């Protein structure tokens, strides 16, 4: 079969010695591995699972602060005082009531 032919060629082919010898090559490889996966790190508890929600929490915090800053801005509107026209109406109503009361007093006495 053709597949077996290829396999045979590959297994029989010579390959160059690694630079510095087999031991040095192994050391290089292990060094790279140690760099990416340091042995002092505890892999049983993944730190990535904690780091991801931290970003979400930070984002939520920023959103909450932004909301807090924006939200009360509309509620902080103070109550308006009566307008000048309204005040005139109030003065008129007071005067009318005052007169009504005085008239009643006159009739009473």
């Amino acid at each position, binding site marked *: 079969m053709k597949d077996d032919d290829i396999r045979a060629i590959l297994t029989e082919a010579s390959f160059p010695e690694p630079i510095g010898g087999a031991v040095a090559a192994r050391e290089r490889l292990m060094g790279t591995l140690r760099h990416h996966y340091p042995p002092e790190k505890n892999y049983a508890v993944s730190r990535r699972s904690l780091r991801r929600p931290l970003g979400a929490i930070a984002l939520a915090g920023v959103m909450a602060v932004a909301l807090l800053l924006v939200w009360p801005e509309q*509620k*902080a*509107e*103070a*109550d*308006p*005082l*009566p307008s*000048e026209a*309204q*005040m*005139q*109406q*109030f*003065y008129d*109503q*007071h*005067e*009318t*009531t*005052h007169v*009504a*009361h*005085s008239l*009643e007093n006159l009739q009473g006495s």
Partner: protein
Amino acid sequence: MNARCSGFLGILLLISSAVVGCSPPRVPPLNNLPAKTGSAALQEARKIEVPETLEGWKLVRHNGGEHTQFLYAKGKRSFSLFLSETKSLQPLKAQEGWKAILLGTETSAFLHKDSRSPNRSAIVFKHQMQRRMIMGKLSELELVSLAKQLQ
């Protein structure tokens, strides 16, 4: 009774504003709600927890409506107390034509003078959710001392 009255008033105002095409007047006309005098007025005052006498002034009249009015009299003089519900605890906003003063330590109040008759003046301040206004031919000192009693 009060709710029905205000409901009726609201409908009246709606119709009138729809017909005239302008905003409804904020102060309802006097003849819409009969004024209460004597003991009837005192009853209303007790309901709203407004004093019946105030520094020698006696409560004599009550007018219901959006801006409840109580008339206090002493001899020939009188002043009105207007109560308006504001639905908020926010302080009053300073405005042109009003003079800001302090009642006690922190309550701010505003004084107003009638442009048509300068001896008539008013003071407005906030009492919880209520806007209270004292109005009459009173001096500034009298207004402030009455406001302090009602604050």
